[in-house]
């Protein structure tokens, strides 16, 4: 079998056009070329075979350069899209590209819930930005508010789902985050709607950019927006409280519960004033609360052992939970005694 092939290959090696034959053929071809010149119209279409063409099989260099440039440009566009609001050209990029990509990283339901709360915050920021620009067309404000509602719905559904699955921790924490978000942004809108000129800070994640408003932005549109946000905030806080109540009972039975929940960041000032005197023993002052809270977030991992060591103290504290919502701090305060 191989002989045949060898024979063929050998023959092939010795088969070629003689120099004379080759030149003769070339001249014939040139004659033909002259007789049939390139047609004029398609000049512009002709070019050097592009190193970027996908059809060339060996141009990895060209294609990889294109890919790198594309990624860089895409990165720039995404970055620029971050500050857009509904109505801007790049807003779709913000929602469908940036947010999809960042959302894709969230795998667990909890991570997804956290991301969705973040999304609500973004929608709130957009509402604020639009409210701060009085010359914006009114429908955009509608759109922004609708978006806000939609994303808020999603978060609420998540909370419901956690509740159904008896996942107390996630439900409570998500609810608390949501109320937190509403709280901080309600404040901004409140300020905006007051009759005083104000300085607002944008709460975007990467930078804090102070935005100075020349005059008050109080108007009808913004008042309705503010009211809506207030209502939403109220609902969120109510839900949070409900869930806390519900799952608090479960915690009584578990003495080895992991790190405690982080309570809502911003409390109404009125609630602070209601603090019963008897709790002062265990409750640190408000300023210290902030300190502790920061240590809570960073030392969460080391917290559990300390908590479980004092089950007795916990029982006592649980009874006092109804009074205030700063149970978490009490536990630490108790240990810090």
């Amino acid at each position: 079998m191989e002989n045949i092939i060898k024979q063929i290959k050998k023959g092939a090696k010795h088969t070629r056009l003689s120099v004379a034959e080759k030149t003769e053929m070339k001249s014939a071809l040139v004659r033909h070329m002259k007789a049939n010149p390139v047609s004029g119209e398609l000049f512009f279409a002709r070019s050097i075979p592009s190193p970027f063409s996908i059809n060339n099989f060996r141009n990895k260099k060209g294609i990889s350069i294109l890919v790198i440039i594309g990624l860089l440009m895409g990165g720039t566009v995404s970055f620029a899209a971050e500050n857009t609001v509904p109505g801007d050209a790049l807003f779709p990029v913000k929602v469908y590209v940036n947010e999809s990509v960042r959302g894709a990283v969230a795998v667990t339901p909890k991570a997804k819930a956290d991301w969705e709360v973040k999304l609500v915050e973004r929608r709130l920021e957009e509402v604020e930005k639009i409210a701060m620009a009085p010359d914006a067309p009114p429908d955009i404000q509608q759109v922004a508010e609708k978006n806000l509602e939609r994303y808020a719905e999603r978060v609420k559904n998540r909370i419901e789902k956690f509740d159904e699955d008896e996942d107390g921790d996630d439900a409570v924490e998500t609810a608390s985050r949501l109320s937190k978000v509403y709280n901080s942004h309600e404040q901004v809108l409140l300020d905006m709607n007051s009759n005083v000129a104000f300085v607002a800070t944008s709460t975007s994640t990467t930078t804090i950019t102070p935005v100075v408003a020349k005059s008050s932005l109080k108007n009808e549109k913004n008042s309705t927006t503010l009211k809506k946000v207030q209502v939403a905030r109220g609902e969120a806080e109510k839900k949070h409280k409900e869930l806390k109540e519900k799952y608090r009972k479960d915690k009584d039975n578990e003495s080895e519960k992991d790190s405690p929940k982080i309570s809502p960041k911003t409390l109404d000032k009125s609630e602070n004033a209601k603090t019963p005197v008897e709790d002062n023993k265990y409750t640190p002052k408000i300023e210290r609360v902030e300190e502790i809270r920061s240590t809570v977030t960073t030392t969460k991992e080391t917290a559990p052992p300390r908590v479980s060591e004092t089950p007795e103290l916990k029982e006592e504290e649980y009874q006092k939970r109804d009074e205030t919502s700063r149970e978490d701090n009490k536990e630490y305060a108790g240990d810090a005694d």
Partner: protein
Amino acid sequence: MKTNAVEQEFLRAYDQFADAIFRHCVFRVSDREKAKDLAQGTFVRVWDYMSQGKEIDNMRAFLYRIANNLIIDEYRKKKDESLDRMRDEEGFDIGTESMRDIETKDEHAQTLALLECLPDKYREALVMRHVDGLSVKDIAHLTHETENVISVRIHRAIEKLKALSENHGKHN
């Protein structure tokens, strides 16, 4: 000027591939003169294509495709003209005419003669594989067949050649 660019590209392709295309034709039609005509015809067609401003991404593949088409046309012509001749060659006994050819020519001619006895499709695959050095994948692409079909044809071509050459030996 753009015309120059096109012309340059074409002539460059000619310099690079003329021999390969010619060789391919030789092994396909077993006739040197005819092979020259076919090779020239191939390049003429390529020029006609390029002169219309159309781009060619893969010159080599394009050339083989054109050449193959021309060769197939050639087969059809041959078939129409000399059915009797074909019948003799494909039979169990190699025709007297072929034997005479083999006796007088050298080994290379013997190879060509043997190849001519193969069915067209077998020869096509075999030549592309072992004369042109194309991969089975490329051949499949060119001829619009599956790789499996090509592999089978190559294998059968070799088997048939073996059988034919043994027969030739017997006849001696």
